[in-house]
């Protein structure tokens, strides 16, 4: 019996660790491969260094695209799959449920899915996300910082001078090689 329990637990943990890693790869890597050749002419693209970003809110309003090409992304490897997610819930909520008034995100772009007691998975609906960084601030302050902002290259026009880069108070938006267009937490670390 003990063995059975252990192997089940092991499977669940493995599931969480590996399946989410895969979903990340498909979500970003797949898109990169498919979309980049059409949208990016040069060898460099704009990207946010998540360790420099201070979640000032300008990514939501400064982008020439509307809604912004900046979206919240999730480093699932770093996520705690917590019930009380600091990026999802408004502080002080009494019931940890998905009622709109409990959500920190102004556009309800974060989806909370029950996986298995006691785990919840958080995914981003990019059509709703405006890149405001509010959830990033909550996750960074109370959690592991797995939520962070990235310029999504299936939406970004790769402007000569990124309007966000010009106005970013933290100089967090930089040119990166087009063949490595994302700076995902977990994939690279603070230097």
């Amino acid at each position: 019996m003990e063995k059975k329990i252990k192997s089940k637990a092991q499977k669940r943990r493995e599931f969480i660790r590996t399946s989410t890693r895969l979903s990340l790869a498909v979500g970003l890597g797949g898109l990169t491969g498919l979309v980049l050749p059409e949208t990016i002419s040069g060898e460099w693209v704009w990207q946010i260094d998540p360790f420099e970003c201070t979640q000032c809110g300008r990514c939501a309003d400064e982008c020439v695209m509307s809604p912004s090409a900046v979206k919240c992304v999730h480093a699932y490897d770093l996520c705690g799959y917590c019930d009380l997610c600091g990026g999802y819930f408004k502080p002080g909520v009494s019931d940890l449920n998905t009622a709109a008034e409990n959500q920190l995100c102004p556009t309800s772009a974060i989806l909370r899915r029950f996986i298995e007691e006691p785990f919840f998975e958080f995914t981003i609906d990019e059509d709703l996300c405006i890149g405001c960084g509010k959830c990033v601030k909550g996750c960074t302050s109370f959690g592991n910082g797995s939520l962070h902002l990235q310029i999504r290259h299936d939406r970004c026009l790769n402007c000569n001078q990124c309007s966000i880069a010009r106005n970013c108070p933290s100089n967090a938006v930089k040119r990166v090689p087009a063949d490595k267009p994302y700076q995902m937490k977990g994939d690279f670390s603070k230097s």
Partner: protein
Amino acid sequence: MKKYGLYILLISMGILISYLILADFLKTSVKKRQGNPYAYNIEAFKKIDPDLVKYAEIRRIRLSLPDPVGINYHQGKLGIAYKHAIQLIDTLGREVFNQETGEVNTCVSFSPEGKMFLASGREIHQLDPQGTFTQSWKVDGEDPIITALAFKNNQVLAASAGQWKVLRFDEHGTLLDSFDGTGRLEGDYGFILPSPYFDMQIDPDGELWVANTGLLTLENYAENGTLRAFWGKPSFDVDGFTGCCNPVHFAILPDGSFVTSEKGLIRIKIHLPSGEFDCLVAGPEDFEEDSEPPDLAVDENGRIFVLDITRSMIRIYKRNNT
């Protein structure tokens, strides 16, 4: 004359357009811009009710070596683990010894008889009172990260944050068994450690307590590794634990109360042996922005030694009116 009027009109229009462009620029320039409309004011949570603070900081000891990582106390002495050194000092900060180590250390602890133990990721070392290594053993398995050591029935218990397990060794380092906290009544999950913090302590009655940080609970385990009791609740309020993984460190006072240290919103709190919130020792405003969460130790008089990793100092707290 007609031409003259046209010139005036053009000049006036030029001035008007320049004025409009300048006004728009000034209104929308970065410096003039309104604050962040999506601001999430974390500062508000850093404020704590001063009536809840029942401890005062009575002394600070500035550490002499770089990169402290862990602290523990035994009979008037403090063991400090640094990334690449181990040090023993008294409670006034006078050094007994310091010893360089090769590995990156993770925690330090004392057995009830006062033997000093140091963990460095996948290795456990024992030191004599002069700081000489007397025995060491490797922890096998995938990615062990030993973050706490405890001692019970002549056994060495090692909390491995990398493996989500508590490992039990005999006093010579032979692995006896391990448990992962599974098998509880509701759900088969056990220890859940979203980040490499996994603390463990023995209370004054000899009971083993483990911080199951992913569940925001402190849990009591029986000899056979089954869960016997737990307390802790997720909450942004001061009486619960917030974030994805807390408490990251804890210590147990002589009366069985718990001292807990939280990351994210750094708070040092006291919970009664029942788990009920008692009071605060220190709050977020007592620590620097983005501080590492402090490790903790307590002495037989209930004084609390807070290892302020970011400021590289030990801060000693005493309960008011005691």
